[in-house]
């Protein structure tokens, strides 16, 4: 559809906005009568705005859903986020809370129950951080369908950390938590990338131990009472990235 030289303002704005938010705008929808787009060209200029609009909203979702972002990987997370942006654009003057419905939307729009469960876990952690409260409900099991599983290959090593340099030599995942000082614990498991060793504090060890026994997430989280949500988020991120825990 070719735009006339001067569309009425309300029509121009509605059409332009549709272009910015659509997952993949059709070429015929691009405004051909733009002028002065200079080195960018009409399509490039529209895409410059598309990138800015979507990058800002993507950034909010990435911040609010760090475990899901790591779990899916960059490309899949972007695709998932862009679908949400197209389906649920912001309607508020503030970006605070834009991602609040992302978890619910993920549950209703995707057949990928694992991603949906992780999104709910992210949301639960985010809510706790916002309220400044310890995590009370992981949310991941609230539907009764998704469960957090500990990989059957997991073994626990409880001991002093002088063993750590040897064991972590098998690590395949970068950016895992640094060992905590003093007596601590190590969880070792296999995943598709090889052997993974992750140092854990005593409470994280207790939490994972409960999960490995099949205790539901909400109940198991009692082992982590008093742990800051941010720290809990780091544990889950590392454990998920290392293939130590999964959702089913």
């Amino acid at each position: 559809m070719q735009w006339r030289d001067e569309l009425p303002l309300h029509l121009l704005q509605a059409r332009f906005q549709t272009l910015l938010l659509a997952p993949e705008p059709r070429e015929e929808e691009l405004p051909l009568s733009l002028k002065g787009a200079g080195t960018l060209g009409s399509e490039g200029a529209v895409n410059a705005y598309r990138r800015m609009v979507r990058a800002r909203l993507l950034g909010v979702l990435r911040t609010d859903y760090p475990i899901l972002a790591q779990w899916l990987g960059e490309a899949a997370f972007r695709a998932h986020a862009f679908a949400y942006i197209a389906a649920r654009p912001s309607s508020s003057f503030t970006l605070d809370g834009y991602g609040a419905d992302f978890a619910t939307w993920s549950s209703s729009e995707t057949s990928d129950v694992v991603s949906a469960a992780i999104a709910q876990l992210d949301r639960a952690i985010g809510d706790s951080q916002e309220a400044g409260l310890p995590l009370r409900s992981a949310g991941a099991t609230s539907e009764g369908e998704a469960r957090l599983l500990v990989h059957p290959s997991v073994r626990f090593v409880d001991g002093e950390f002088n063993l750590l340099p040897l064991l972590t030599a098998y690590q395949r995942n970068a950016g895992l938590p640094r060992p905590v000082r003093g007596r601590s614990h190590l969880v070792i498991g296999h995943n598709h990338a090889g052997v993974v060793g992750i140092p854990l504090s005593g409470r994280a060890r207790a939490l994972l131990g409960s999960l490995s026994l099949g205790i539901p997430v909400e109940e198991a989280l009692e082992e982590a009472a008093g742990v800051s949500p941010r720290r809990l988020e780091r544990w889950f991120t590392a454990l998920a990235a290392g293939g130590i825990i999964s959702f089913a």
Partner: protein
Amino acid sequence: MHRLRERSTQLGLGLGLRGPHFEALEASLPRLGFLELLSENWIDAPARRLRHLETLLPRYPVVLHGVSLSIGSTDPLDRDYLQRLKRLIRETNPLWVSDHLAWTGVRGINTHDLLPLPATEEALRHVVARAREVSEILERPLVLENPSAYLEFPGSMSESEFVARIAEEADIGLLLDVNNIWVSSRNLGFDPLEYVDRMPADRIVQIHLAGHEDLGTHLLDTHGKPVSEEVWQLYARLVRRIGPRATLLEWDADVPPLSSALQELKKAERWLSPELVYAMAG
């Protein structure tokens, strides 16, 4: 407008208040002419963030700068936003309230980006009417900023004429962002000197300086780099013609330490009269 302009000529140099600078600002209280608060960062802000203002508000004159007014949108004005903004005005007592000559969304959607308006008579009449209404609601001088642009819709006048006429006909102030003028001039192919020269001096109450990034195909307004030499030259030309105005450095991405931001801002002294240099003398 005359009193507002007079106040602006005395303010000197200011800095946009950003989170990474809170502590350093509170600890050092550098000599600054004024602070600019991003309205959306402070509307309904949690108590722990508001505490920063307890130290800073008594020390510095403040102006508010928003991104959500959407003055050019064909949606109705967002009354909820305006009421919250008005509450913030009562709390912070700014000299003026600025936002952008742009729209951020329609049909109840907010893209959270500053989208360009066509320079048409219809858009001009629309913005003028809304700007008058907003001024009445806020009961504080309204100032609009020229945004950076990456495309231009078909229109019947140049952007500089569009901006100048809106300021005159709505009886509002202008915040002239010289970095935006440079970025848009390169992206859209107009003469930035002519643009600067056409801006009505008696309407300009504030100037923005910022950095941009050259992506090869276009310039991107990132607020993440030092001010470019071309932008300093535009600033010099503007100040030579209209005299000193409240001048503010914006730095939003890769925010450097406060000392570096102040050093960058200090460069503006080269073009300001000696009696105004007090703002950064400390």
